[in-house]
């Protein structure tokens, strides 16, 4: 690793740590930005790198929320009793109980989601192309509907989690850094993963699954492990989100199929599919767009977001990274053969003429 790269990452890390102190009023928004970055990166693991476009990764987010909440509450009280009181009864948590519940809850959520990805993937990975997208979307919607009928976890009303006894601003910082640490760990992990044999196998599955199989890659195992890894991280951030939101219900905040579930796909497409940095850039661009429309086009924000989705998908599918790669290939260490690019240009001109 050369000195420039170390400096670049050092600056990014410094910004990450300093951001909540520089903009203390925006800590929650910055935490949400990290959430978007993390879910986009995890979506890109299967969507961009492996070619399996899931519309139902939100399932792990919602499940993570519920698992984390159930663990955190279950360590101290009876869950059925707690949700039965729906926030009305008096259930105090000491700070110690809160922290233990937070850590164990988030990690437990991650593990549970990874496990459920194994089971779900065993069925769903048999589906190809759009059927996989529809199947995963159906799973997420069905899970939301079933959970909203499950009284033990609060039914349609959802769960109200305990709040941290300490300072409110402190809690916000704590949540921000929980997200940020998960994000940094995920980035380092993916940076390593995409360079290994495993990453190469994932790309092989995307490019041609039949051939990859013929080359002796156990495609099903790779798909399951990759999805389980991405599910682990979504589960963890789902758990953290549960503590951030404090009160959540199944359809709109946990299994929010049309909000976060589709936003993560748009973030990735906006930034560039199948690249390490694409999801991050896309998530930042999307979050900025979202906040601006939320502030200035109140009431029309959803229309604007829908339009953004359509425009991104239809006109700009390679994303910012794809566009950069096309215009500035030398930044990516790609050398373009002059002759080849010439022939490509002429063939393009011919195609246009036709």
């Amino acid at each position, binding site marked *: 690793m050369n000195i420039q790269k170390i400096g670049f990452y050092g600056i990014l890390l410094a910004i990450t740590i300093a951001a909540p102190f520089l903009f203390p009023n925006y800590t929650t928004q910055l935490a949400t930005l990290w959430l978007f970055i993390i879910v986009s990166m995890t979506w890109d693991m299967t969507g961009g790198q492996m070619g399996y476009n899931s519309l139902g990764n939100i399932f792990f987010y919602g499940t993570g929320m519920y698992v984390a909440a159930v663990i955190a509450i279950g360590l101290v009280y009876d869950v059925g009793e707690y949700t039965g009181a729906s926030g009305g009864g008096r259930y105090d948590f000491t700070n110690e109980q809160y922290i233990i519940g937070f850590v164990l809850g988030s990690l437990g959520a991650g593990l549970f989601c990874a496990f459920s990805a194994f089971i779900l993937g065993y069925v769903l990975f*048999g589906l190809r192309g759009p059927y996989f997208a*529809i199947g995963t979307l*159906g799973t997420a*919607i069905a899970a939301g509907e079933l959970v909203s009928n499950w009284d033990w976890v609060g039914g349609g009303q959802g769960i109200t989690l305990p709040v941290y006894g300490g300072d409110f601003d402190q809690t916000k910082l704590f949540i921000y850094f929980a997200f940020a640490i998960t994000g940094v760990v995920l980035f380092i992990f993916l940076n390593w993963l995409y360079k290994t044999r495993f990453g190469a196998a994932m790309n092989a599955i995307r490019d041609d699954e039949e051939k990859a199989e013929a080359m002796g890659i*156990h495609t*099903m195992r790779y798909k399951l492990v990759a999805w389980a890894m991405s599910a682990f991280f979504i589960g963890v951030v789902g758990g953290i989100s549960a503590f951030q939101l404090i009160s959540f219900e199944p359809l709109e905040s946990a299994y929010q199929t049309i909000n976060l579930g589709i936003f993560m796909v748009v973030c990735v497409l906006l930034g560039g599919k199948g690249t390490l940095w694409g999801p991050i850039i896309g998530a930042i661009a999307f979050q900025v767009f979202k906040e601006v429309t939320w502030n200035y086009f109140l009431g029309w924000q*959803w229309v604007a977001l829908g339009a953004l*989705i359509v425009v991104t998908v*239809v006109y700009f*599918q390679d994303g910012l990274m794809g566009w950069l790669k096309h215009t500035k290939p030398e930044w990516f260490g790609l050398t373009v053969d002059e002759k080849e690019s010439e022939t490509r240009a002429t063939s393009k001109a011919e195609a246009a003429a036709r």
Partner: protein
Amino acid sequence: MDQIIGNIDLLIQFPIVNLKIILDGVMIGALFALAAYGLALVWGVMNVKNLAQGDFVIGGGYVSWWLANNVGLHPLLGVPIAFVVMWGIGWVTYKLVISRVIERDLFTSLLATFGLAIMYAQLMNLMFGSDTQSLVLDVTALGLENNYYFADGLIDLPAAKIIGVALAAILATCVILFMKRSRMGQAIRATAQDARAARVMGIDTEKVYAFTFSLNSAICGAAGAIIVMVWVIQPFYGITYSVRAFVIVTAAGLGNLPGVIAAGLGIGAAEQYGSHVFGIGYQQAIAVMLLLAVLVYRLLQQKRNRQVLQ
């Protein structure tokens, strides 16, 4: 659990309740089948999976509702007008978005129409508010009664539902005849078989695509105008109709019209049974679970032909 057993017990003790549930299910299923037919048409002809299907249905419902409330139009006349208006909206949608995703991979069309679905639902929310709306169809002027009773009043059959199903049947027959007999119908079927060959034969496939998508949107709109008389509509109900249309088409396969009708009626009945046994809260869940069940079933069916490394 006790409640579920009690509900099943009721079905066994009073077999006439079964008849009521099946009748209800078949009526709602007829309208699902209409939306599903449009979806199968677009899917088969231009390989676009339209997730905004349900929003076209709701859009048609709002056209009829708005006209009835602001112009005082009879709800029955709303059906053809919704057909025409949604034709226009479908055409604009095609020109702006769909025409650019036909040649692309399937996920693109899925995601683009998902974006459209969000946009339409929000636009309707802004224009008409988020309350559930419905229209009352008063047919006493036509010399009919508003409600018919059978089996000592155990089964009530509103005239609106009968008329709705009849209209759906008429619409379906017209569309099928059009597809079989007319020149345009032939062109659509030819394009579905092989777009390239159709182009070679001098068919303007671009025009066929635009026509097909507009026709789909118009069918959905008419279905919506019927639904607003029989049930209720709300801006965000669209996705449930999309999901049901997907269930039906996935179960029946493309270009299999009897299959689409049978699957539509069957899903309507299955949903009514499910919500009777498990409670109304599960109605949505049942529709989606059926989709998953169908997908898994088809997967197992195909697994026999596929040999993979284990």
